[in-house]
């Protein structure tokens, strides 16, 4: 199965995610308007400016449509600004428009401005060895996670990657390196979820073979 993954393309590192998704066997399509969410198996929200995402997607009605689809179970992978958009709340900053979907509280620009942006090895136990090379750019971190959320990685004492079933977020930029393991984890999760849904269908009702 080659899942069809939308990449939110309001602004940001879109083509980098498209290349990474292609590498792990997914088809990609750009999402800028609400109608472009139809028929997707998953969605990636890239790095970029989260305030721009919220404003531009809000004006076209895309923000509400994203909220609905993700609340309805659409698998989603958010990096950096994408992590922020998926948070239930931003610590210390009230009025920014978010999509939500993950039971996490985030802090924007938590590691500082660009002068403090850095790269470092990040151990992601679920991916095994070696560690990922994390590129952190004006990066956020996760302050709190809810009971359904599994912490995937910490760096310098802060949560920088997390998962809730088929929803994955990370504060760094795997799309800027050649390491595709997080993208693969996301896409394999979609394949697994689709496969088990197919099984459920076969078990419950007869499916026509169209």
């Amino acid at each position, binding site marked *: 199965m080659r899942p069809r993954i939308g990449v939110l*393309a*309001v*602004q*940001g*590192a*879109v*083509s*980098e995610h498209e290349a990474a998704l292609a590498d792990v066997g997914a088809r990609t399509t750009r999402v*800028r*308007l609400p109608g472009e969410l139809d028929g997707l198996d998953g969605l990636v929200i890239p*790095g*970029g*400016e989260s*305030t*721009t995402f919220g*404003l*531009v997607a809000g*004006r076209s009605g895309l923000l509400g449509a994203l909220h609905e689809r993700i609340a309805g179970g659409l698998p989603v992978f958010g990096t*950096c*600004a994408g992590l922020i958009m998926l948070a239930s709340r931003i610590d210390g*900053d009230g009025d920014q428009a978010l999509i939500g979907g993950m039971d996490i509280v985030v802090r*924007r*620009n938590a*590691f500082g*401005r*660009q*002068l*403090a*942006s*850095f*790269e*470092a090895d990040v151990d992601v136990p679920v991916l095994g060895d070696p560690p990922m090379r*994390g*590129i*952190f*750019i*004006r990066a956020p971190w996760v302050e709190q996670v809810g009971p359904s959320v599994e912490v995937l990685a910490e*760096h*310098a004492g802060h949560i920088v990657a997390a998962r809730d079933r088929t929803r994955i977020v990370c504060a760094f*930029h795997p799309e*800027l*390196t050649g390491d595709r393991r997080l993208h693969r984890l996301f896409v394999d999760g979609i394949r697994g979820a689709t496969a088990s849904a197919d099984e459920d269908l076969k078990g419950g009702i007869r499916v026509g073979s169209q």
Partner: protein
Amino acid sequence: MSDNAGANGATGTDAVKAGLARMLKGGVIMDVVDAEQAKIAEEAGACAVMALERIPSEIRRDGGVARMSDPEMIIGIQEAVSIPVMAKCRIGHHVEAQVLQTLEVDYIDESEVLTPADEASHVDKRRFTIPFVCGATNLGEALRRISEGAAMIRTKGEAGTGNVVEAVRHMKTITQGIRRVASATSDERFAIAKEMAAPLDLVEWVGEHGRLPVVNFSAGGIATPADAALMMYLGCEGVFVGSGIFMSEDPPARARAIVEATTHWDDPEVVARVSRGLREAMPGLEIAQIAAEGGLLQTRGW
């Protein structure tokens, strides 16, 4: 190298510098002169702001020497918005760049819009932790800036004119240069590198990949949503808008419209919708007249 061991990891690496520009792609970077304009830009959906004391059309009108902005003003803008804040230093002015780095601006624009401080050399940008964006009018100039450490390029256009013709010329000149290098044989690339006065290794990289090694935005003369969409159509990865917003009659509406048109550049229905009722754009200037008066900014930089 500028790589440093920070508290959390290595700062100022090439990946970290060029990476921020990747996060700005598809966005609009707006010139602002105070915190109030910065808020308008942020609320319109700008992906970053450029803090400067006078926007290019005012610099053009006032004449004299244009320098780095007052740090007080830059700090005021940093406190007003959460998006990245960029600021300009004069070409070759190492110490203005150091001051901007100390202020923790997110990107430094070594800009021809300010009066050059050095008529032979640009800043050695590899020695800084903060990334630089530089203007270019052709591929050779872009690659010279990248070899000096620029982590982002913008086509120069002709700032402060409200006339997009030079931005188009520079964007097309760069993409034509890339096509030429990409189709050249390996032996021909030596001659091209010499002719373009660009480092051979970068010429070879462009030949192999068919693009610049860093993100390329367009700047200089963009005044309407359609102008911004045109530059995206021509292959740039985002736009800088200087005088085009705050010299127009309705800056918040125009700023929003230019952001929308940059995201939806290939959807004429959106560009048409957002272009409606924006009131007057900034007045435009004829390039030939500026050139005759010796007022071109794009010829600054070497």
